């Protein structure tokens, strides 16, 4: 059913259609609207039977999900940013215990400096946590990927994180085709756990494993992740059959045919990038876009095929490793390592800085002129950087960069003439 609806509300409705039995969360911007809406659906009885539990931390939220999932209940939670870090020990534990929890990550920057706005630092911090990570480009994808996520998680007995850009998607009111309950039921059978706590058949879950078997356990988890690369396209096809619209799968391509420059990105910025690509195509530049939906496991061979024929690849990513470089770029570089494709990393949109069509067009222009550095930062205020570097070198006023940068603005005004207090 087509509705003009806020992304968070749409995701809440979609999650409710998936009939989670235990929903537990701790509020953090920009995830709040999702869990508030699910809370209402549970209170009104529209989502039943379901236990909605308010807890004292994200660590507890993931832990409740772990307990519920291990007892055979379909469990859902949502978080962002610091919340994900605060629950991180349990995030790894959930995947290690092979519990098919589904979690929405309303992507947000990680502090310090504290920042509530969107980027992908949180998702990247969890990219090695053993979870499947799916990135939504639109609110329609966010909705559809949640339905897919429950099915995928439960088939593979692996937790799935659905990443949607905080505020940019969660707070955007757009047209969304909400899934009908009957179709969701047709796509998503009741949760049949591989193993669960049951007095009739007692098992011990979470026992210690020593050096004699730990590596094997980890490799088995890796192989189950790789199974997802086969399963996701199949499930996407099944989704299309049932819902009558395509679902995002591993990767999506846009105007890549004949493209010598291809932009790779994750999430909602792909929309802006496509607009920019249309502009550049009109101007004669042969550019295209590859959007990564499935970031973990990384669809290496699909990315390699999608990039085949390109002379250079521009990875625009909303996160980076200080002292290293891009995160997504690393995976893309590995995917094209056997070719002579040049991979450029453009870090953009950190801490909610808008990525504009014009900004992307300027990146593509630089790429066309062969002027793109291996690592660059979009719309960077170099004056601030230079001033701060000079200050640190002169050691005139100590303090962290973040504090000093704030202190620098507004520019100092002349002291009023008069006696000091």
């Amino acid at each position, binding site marked *: 059913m087509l509705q*003009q609806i*806020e992304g968070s509300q749409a995701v809440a409705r979609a999650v409710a259609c998936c009939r989670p039995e235990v929903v537990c969360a701790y509020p953090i*911007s*920009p995830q709040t609207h999702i869990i508030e809406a699910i809370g209402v659906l549970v209170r009104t009885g529209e989502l039943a039977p379901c236990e909605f539990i308010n807890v004292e931390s994200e660590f507890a939220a993931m832990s409740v999900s772990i307990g519920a999932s291990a007892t055979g209940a379909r469990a859902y939670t949502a978080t962002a940013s610091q919340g994900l870090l605060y629950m991180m020990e349990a995030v790894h534990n959930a995947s290690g215990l092979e519990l098919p929890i589904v979690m929405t990550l309303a992507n947000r920057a990680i502090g310090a400096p504290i920042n*509530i*706005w*969107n980027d992908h630092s949180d998702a990247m911090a969890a990219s090695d946590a053993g979870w499947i990570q799916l990135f939504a480009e639109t609110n329609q994808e966010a909705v559809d990927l949640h339905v897919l996520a429950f099915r995928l998680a439960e088939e593979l007995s692996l937790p799935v994180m659905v990443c949607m*850009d*905080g*505020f*940019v*998607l969660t*707070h*955007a*009111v*757009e*047209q969304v085709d909400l899934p009908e309950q009957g179709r969701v039921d047709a796509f998503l059978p009741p949760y049949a756990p591989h193993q669960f706590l049951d007095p009739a058949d007692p098992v011990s879950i979470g026992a210690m494993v020593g050096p004699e078997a730990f590596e094997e356990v980890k490799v088995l988890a890796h192989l189950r992740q790789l199974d997802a690369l086969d399963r996701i396209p199949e499930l996407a096809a099944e989704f299309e059959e049932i819902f009558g619209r395509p679902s995002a799968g591993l990767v999506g391509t846009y105007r890549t045919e004949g493209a010598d420059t291809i932009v790779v990105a994750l999430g*909602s*910025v*792909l*929309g*802006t990038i*496509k*607009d920019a690509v249309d502009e550049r195509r009109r101007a004669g530049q042969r550019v295209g876009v590859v959007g990564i939906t499935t970031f973990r496991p990384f669809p290496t061979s699909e990315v390699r095929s999608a990039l085949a024929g390109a002379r250079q690849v521009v990875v625009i990513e909303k996160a980076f490793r200080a002292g290293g470089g891009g995160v997504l770029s690393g995976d893309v570089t590995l995917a094209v390592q056997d070719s002579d494709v040049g991979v450029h990393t453009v870090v953009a949109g950190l801490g*909610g800085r*808008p*990525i*504009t*069509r014009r900004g992307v067009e300027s990146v593509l222009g630089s790429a066309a002129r062969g002027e793109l550095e291996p690592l660059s930062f979009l719309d960077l205020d170099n004056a601030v950087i230079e001033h701060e570097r000079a200050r640190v070198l002169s050691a005139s006023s100590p303090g962290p960069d973040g504090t000093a940068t704030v202190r620098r603005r507004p520019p100092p005004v002349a002291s009023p003439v008069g006696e000091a207090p």
Partner: protein
Amino acid sequence: MFQVRIHGRGGQGVVAAAEILSMAAFDEGRFAQAFPSFGSERMGAPVVSYCRIDDRPIRTHEPIAEPDALIVQDPTLVHQVDLFGGLADDAYVLVNTSKSFEGLGLAEFASRFRPGRLLTCPATALALEYVGRPLPNAALLGGFAALTGRISLDALEKAISERFAGVVGTANAAAARAAFEFVVDEARAGQDREVVARAPAD
């Protein structure tokens, strides 16, 4: 694509205004996107919301830097915030005030725009009259519909009634209609003035 930027203060329904506008456009079969300026603003702080309307799917999610129309819900922002940044000379501007642009100290600014595209509308007074609370957002949308012709009053009234349940919805829809009529009257009067002003030159 038609892009609207709405300025106001936290608590004035700035975000809801953009949502309602997008819902009205959706109801008319068009694509629309509404979103707030993302911040941690408290009650009373300046806030911004955005709405895009198009006949085809909207892909971009960047903030609206160059709006086709501007709605100012709180005239006290006029000299505090860069309200008019990125505004082209043919843009629409609707300011919630019972004063004129001259009265707001914006006479020179207003002269830059195409005649008939700048209006003030006493939306708070209308809201107090029809809704009983000083929440000008619905009324201003009525004024916006009349000023720009980009959305029908019927779709707007429907969206308002969907957004606010029961009598609150009805009252806000009435405020929107009153503002719509006010702006239509103002525009007619403005045209008359323009005709009068132009007459000697002809």
